[in-house]
């Protein structure tokens, strides 16, 4: 049974307190209506079975520190989606702003269309715990900067946009994790710590179910299985700055 909370005339602190209250009472499906830039929705929530639908445009830091729930945004999202998120899922039926998935540690984020600058920076990963961020459209500069783990997938297929799939300083300082980009990434845009490779058959079989899931999540019908157009970007050094110092 889905419960509805109207965000109209509520300050974010009150809205988030009400969400927590319902989740603590065992409600597993909550729909937020009239969301107009309310910050910190689902911030720090640890309810694994909680499903949150957001009608309207949520504010900054949606799902920051989030640890389990699923959040579906029916519209665009602002900056800081999934900031330092630990587990759970975020689906954005639209585009997202800057710093999506900053320091992300686990869980999945799907952005149907494009995203802004500094996406997926400082993403982490340890053994089986690997965060994943998939973006259907394009992304701006500093994509995957300082990345230390996890998977960043940029498809350049949605959002009706044209132009380069990714901006400058892509994967600068990257020292762990994997980036898949569909489309051309000029050499000069890449950090000198990384290298771009064509996909291997293993990469393709790794990507295929993720792409299928992504398309199904948004009921999209685009061909993104042209694996020849993909590049895999991985660090060639785990110590990009190891030689910078005299001990």
């Amino acid at each position, binding site marked *: 049974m889905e419960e509805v909370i109207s965000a109209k005339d509520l300050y974010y602190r009150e809205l988030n307190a009400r969400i*927590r209250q319902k989740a603590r009472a065992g409600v597993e499906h909550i729909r937020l209506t009239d969301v107009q830039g309310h910050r910190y929705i689902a911030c*720090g929530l640890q309810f694994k079975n909680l499903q949150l639908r957001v009608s309207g445009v949520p504010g900054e830091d949606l799902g*920051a520190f989030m640890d389990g729930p699923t959040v579906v945004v029916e519209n665009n999202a602002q900056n800081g989606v999934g900031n330092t998120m630990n587990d759970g899922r975020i689906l954005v039926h639209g585009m997202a702003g800057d710093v999506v998935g900053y320091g992300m540690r686990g869980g999945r984020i799907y952005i149907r269309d494009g995203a802004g600058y500094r996406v997926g*920076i400082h993403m982490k990963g340890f053994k089986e715990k690997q965060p994943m961020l998939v973006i259907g459209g394009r992304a701006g500069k500093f994509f995957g900067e300082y990345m*230390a783990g996890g998977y960043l997938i940029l498809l350049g297929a949605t959002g009706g946009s044209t132009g380069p799939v990714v901006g400058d300083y892509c994967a600068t*300082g990257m020292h762990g994790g994997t980036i898949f980009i569909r489309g051309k990434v000029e050499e000069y845009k890449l950090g000198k710590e990384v290298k771009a490779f064509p996909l291997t058959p293993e990469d393709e079989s790794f990507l295929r179910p993720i792409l299928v899931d992504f398309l199904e999540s948004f009921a999209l019908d685009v061909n993104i299985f042209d694996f020849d157009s993909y590049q895999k970007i991985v660090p060639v050094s785990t110590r990009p700055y190891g030689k910078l110092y005299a001990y």
Partner: protein
Amino acid sequence: MGNTTTLSDNPRVSNPANTNGSKSGLPPATSPKSDLMGLQSLRPDDHFHSYPEYFVERRHEECIRCLVCVRQCPYDCTYYDPDRDVVYNVHQNCVNCKRCVAMCPTHCIRIERFDSGFRDNGHWGTHLVRGLRKQADTGGVLLTGLGNDLPYPSYFDRIVLDASQVTNPSIDPLREPMELRTYLGRKPESYRPGSPGEVFPNILCEIPVLFAPMSFGAISYNFQHGLALAAQEMGTYFNTGEGGLHPDFRKFRDSVIVQVASGRFGVDPDYLLSSAACEIKIGQGAKPGIGGHLPGEKVNAEISRTRMIPVGTDALSPAPQHDIYSIEDLRLLIYAIKEATEYTRPVSVKIAAVHNTAAIVSGIVRAGADIVVIDGFRGGTGAAPMIIRDHVGIPVEVALAQADQRLREEGIRHQASIIAAGGIRNSADVVKAIALGADAVYIATSAMIAVGCTLCQQCHRGLCAWGITTNRPDLLPRLPADQAAGRLTGLLRGWQHEIQEMLGLMGLNSIESLRGNRLKLRGVGLTQLELQTLGIRQAGL
């Protein structure tokens, strides 16, 4: 980099840039006879290693060949020649950590500065010449540990305390109650009995001295454990630094301040909730404006797990938090943490002391911080470029005085507590800092010295002979956690009594009466402008 290769080819000289966990610290299997007392000249163009910094003098007649010095030296400086039955040193590798001096049962070792080759020069100090040569050899940024060691003037040393005589009797803390209890966090706008209004979360310190942020990785597991035990025992707090909180230490949740820095290492909701307070690290006094950098040598499996980065990789924590470019952005993160912790914990923001500290602190308080930490240029570090450690930032005394003054003028001093940090050496520094406007202080270097640190400044190499700033399995047991806790508790107890004595002699019976009470301070040998900046009067007036 040709020289570096040549050096590492020489089995007698460790090339620290290449050190890793496999170094045994044991002597080489064979020792060339041509090498007398390790004083060979390596090659004419090896400028750095040709001039040892220290000379290890050993009275061979008193040496009993127990080889404890050989086993204890992690810098490959000491070895035993079985053919001659003599212990020798590779002086070039000595860092003057004094581990061998302390461990030698016959006290037959002495370490001296070895200045041979350098004429006295008031402009070109030996440390400068050595730095230039090392850079010429390696082409690198000079890395170091600990705090700024240059002889800048100390304002703490030019401030003296007042005492009561006749007209305002002093108080004897041994017989009368003396309150050191300090609450850190935002205070209400006003108080009316019966209707306290909104009450903000505060943390209670039984002594206004907290252990400063030192990350697991930068310091050893045992040392952090010791800090936790001592903080718990003394009713104060330790700070995780930016390296996350090891699962074993989650039980100290009531005694820990957890840090969130740009690398977001180990930050999840459990981490934020396993705390008494949360702290956002913007800057560090030892390296204002640049980021954290835990060298790959120090990132072992445990650190990798806590920080969620690959083993052996450099843990990068760049200078800006890339989601914070303004006070408004800072407010976003402060309130994200408050939301995640449901407003149950004070949120602290730590900055380095820089030229506009007062204005920045005002912005931080308006952004919603409950505690502001001002870290002065004497503050220590696990690894920082020497040029930045030694030349960037300002003394905490002036930054603190200005920030406190500014917040008072703006009527928002009650909205946040101030913690002063960076080179607090003894209880007099604590008392002076509090009179200059701090609520409490952070200590780190003092705490390290308490557990054995000899200030050799090699923290960045992960080879600490005293087991303080290393997690190498063979070095870790040198500092057992309970021993560290005992010594830290001892230090704090000593300071506690001294602070009580100093309050008593000023005629005060509570630390609250001292906070920002600059009338209790006087300047000695300071200019008018310096006195004005500190907000204190000239001694005698």
